[in-house]
Structure formats: C-alpha cells, structure tokens
C-alpha cells in the first residue's frame, strides 16, 4: 500500500475530488495547510504597514491506495489540479505498511 499526498491549490479541490471519484477512489482525507515555495507570497497592508505573507493557503489531499493504483491516481491528480502556473503543488508517494478499517477491523486492500 502507498500513501499519496498531493499539495494543491485550494480552488482545485472540488475538481480533483471529482476526478478521483470518477476513477473509483472511494476515500480520501483533506487538510488545509500553508505552503511556502517558489510561488511569490502575498502583500498585505494594514494602516500603511506592509507585510509579506510567505505562507499561502494550500490543500493537502491524502489517499491510501494499493500499489497498482498509484500511477493512475497521480496522473489523475496531475490532470485535474494543473493550471500550469507556479504554485500548482506537488505529489509525494510513500510506503504504508498496514491499513486497518476501525469499524470492521479489516486490513490491507479490503480496508481502503
């Protein structure tokens, strides 16, 4: 099993979710995060004082999936999350050794 983490633009979440749903990804977990990268930050001004905000709002999607679905999933994410502008985000894939469904105690592929 693998964990696929994708950091994407927040306004792309809905589209990515639907694209993943379409390739029958049954579950995912989503998190609002702040990202720092090549994309330039935001300038905010309060009473004439300028602040450079380097951390930009991003959304992190986590999907646990069997090894053989990883490629399809990452490709789907790339297709649905890309705008082509700096800041589109990254995908990280890492190993997962065990998966358990709390409700049933099922493990492995049956659990996702």
């Amino acid at each position, binding site marked *: 099993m693998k964990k696929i983490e994708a950091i994407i633009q927040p*306004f792309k979440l*809905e589209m990515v979710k639907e694209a993943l749903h379409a390739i029958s990804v049954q579950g995912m977990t989503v998190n609002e995060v702040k990202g720092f990268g090549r994309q330039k930050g*935001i*300038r*905010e*001004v*309060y009473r004439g004082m300028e602040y450079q905000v380097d951390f930009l709002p991003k959304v992190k999607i986590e999907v646990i999936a069997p090894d053989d679905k990883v490629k399809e999933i990452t490709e789907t994410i790339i297709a649905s999350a890309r705008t082509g502008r700096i800041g589109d985000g990254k995908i990280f894939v890492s190993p997962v050794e065990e998966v358990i469904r709390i409700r049933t105690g099922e493990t492995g592929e049956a659990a996702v």
Partner: protein
Amino acid sequence: MNAADTAFVLFSAALVMLMTPGLALFYGGLVRSKNVLGTIMQNFFMLGVIGVQWALIGYSLAFGPDIGGFVGSLSYIGLSGVGAEPFETYSKTIPHATFMIFQMMFAIITPALITGAWAERLKFSSFLVFILLWATLVYDPVAHWVWGDGGWLKSLGALDFAGGTVVHINAGIAALVAAIVIGKREGYGREAFIPHNLPMTVLGAGLLWFGWFGFNAGSALAADGIATTAFVATHLATCAAVLAWCFVEWAFRGKPTTLGAASGAVAGLVAITPAAGFVGPMSAILIGIGAGSLCYLAVLLKVKLGYDDSLDVVGVHGVGGLWGALATGLFASTAVNPAGADGLFFGNPAQFGIQVVAVAATVIYSFVISYILLKVIDATMGLRVAKEDEVAGLDLTEHQEAGYSL
C-alpha cells in the same frame, strides 16, 4: 419647533445610520470568507461617498424646489440655507437640517442594498463610479417624484410612507440589472457558495430590525400616534414574516433555518416600509405573511431564471418592495391615518391603481438608467475584477487585506 420631535428625528437618523453597518454585516456574513471585507467595505464606504454627495448636491436634487415634477432645483446645493429653522414644506416642527440629515441616511442605505447583487466580483473603482452616478441620476430624482413637494408621483397621490418604491424597488431593480449585466460569479452552479459566518448575518439582521424603527417610525417626523402606528406595524409585519418564511421552508424543505428567519425579517421590514404609517396592526401581520412567503418563493425562482444575484437583493428588496407598495394600495386606511388614503380593501380601488403606476414608473426608470450606466462603465473601465483575482478573493486583490487571521 418642537424639541420632542427634534429629538425623535435625530435619534431616528442615528438608528437609520446604524442600518448601513448592519447591512454590511448582514451581507458580509453571507459571502465566502475571502470576500468578507470587500463586501463590508462597499457598504461602509457608501456612508462616506453618499454622505458627501448628499450634502453637496443630492439633497437639493431630491428636496429642492420642484422642477417640472421631476427633480429638485439646485437651491440647496452645499446645504446652503439648510439650517436651524424649520422647513415648512416638509416638517414644521423640526430644524430643516434635522430633516436633511434624516433623509441623508435613506440616500446612503439605498445604493448599499444593491451591493448584494454584485458581491464577490465587482471592481472597487467601478463600484465607486456607478454608485455616485446612480445616486445622482436615479435615487435623487425618484425620491423627488415620490416625496418631493410637486413630485409627480406625490401629486398623483401615491402612498409611500418610508420608501417602498424609492428605496426598495429602486434598489431591487438596479440589483436585477446589475446581476444580468455583470454576469455570474466564477464557479457559479459548480462550487458551493456557502455563507461563511451566519452569526454575523443574524447580528446584521438584528441591527437592521432595530434601525428600521428609526426608518419607518421616524418617517412620521414627529413623535406622535402616526409614529407609533408605524412602529407597531413595522414590528408586527416583521414578526409575521419571520414566521411565514420559516414555516414555508419547513413545509418545502423539511427544516426551518436561521438564515430563513433572518431573511424573513428583512423581507417583512421591506414590505411594511411603504405601508407602515397607513395600516393597522392586523393588516401589518397580513403584509408580513405575504412578504415572508413571496420573497421565499422569489428567491427560489432566481435559480430558474438563471441570473446570479449573489445575496438575493431582487428576491428580498425587489419583490418585497413590490409587494409592500401594492399592499399599501390594498390595506391603507384613513381610519388609521387620515392624512393617508383608503386602499382597495377599504373601498378605494383607485388607490391600488395609483400604486401600480408608482411601481411601474420606478421599475422602468430604475431599470433603464441603471442599465445604461452599467453598460457605459463596462465599456470604459470594466466592471469585473480579473478572473484570478475573483478566485483569490476581493479582500486580497482589491484591498490587500485578509478578513481573519484566527
């Protein structure tokens, strides 16, 4: 001159002033959090812009000596001659300036109402130009028609106690035009546009309700029985509209909602506005029931009609104002207010006809001029922010601020 009436109208003006920040919160809570400041700003800034416009020219256009029934002359430009002496024509018992400042607050909130229609996408600079022109070319003349001495609708006998046509239909129609001309928000129909802070919206509704006592009762311009009539009618219509909206949605959708209660309150307040000083308490309740149910249905209809009036200015102010103006022609009674007229239900169908004329005139005028103004601005400076700015939110892109850093 009467100190009690002066105190009454001054405090009424203060209450009406509070409605604009109240509206800012009402609207601000309904947008997504990335647009909360952009929405609030348009309302708060309105106080500044129209306050000054009214002092410089607006008041004179609306209440200056009549020119052809259509507009006031420029005699009171820069408030010259608007001082401590009473203004016999409109209010014998209070200083002229008291009357002027009370009316100013109406001039401010009317264009503020429109801002709900274009929320989350209008350029701030274009907003500024539009509302200045709209106030001068639409609000001021229409106020003159209906309330100005010699105004053609007033002469015709149209009843509008506190602004059903001048304020609500006027703003509602401009909102409709704006929604059509400006177009739908990015993601409309695809993404969920969920209010980001409903407690803020309810707070706004509470302040609106409170301020509206100044709006309607204050329009009596004296602390008397008519003011009381208007106060009572205002409250009861609003109560009834809260119930009506919630019960209708309970029946239709299975649950009564908090946003429904707040929206019902505003619908009731809108609808009773033209009628407040002319109808009895039971008529007020009926008007409120009509307002709550009709506005709810109007809001549902929006989706069918396919324009994106972001915060339902058309459904609530347009339709509520329409219903109120017509209902005044139904329920008005000289037993309640001898200075008014009898409506259809009190044996005078003619009054209903007059109300229809007043409504139609306001609808057409507001529609046409608003349309022209928006089209011209669109062609010259553009109405909408860039697509990526809309996605990022107006707070950041138009004002370089963030609403919350919790």
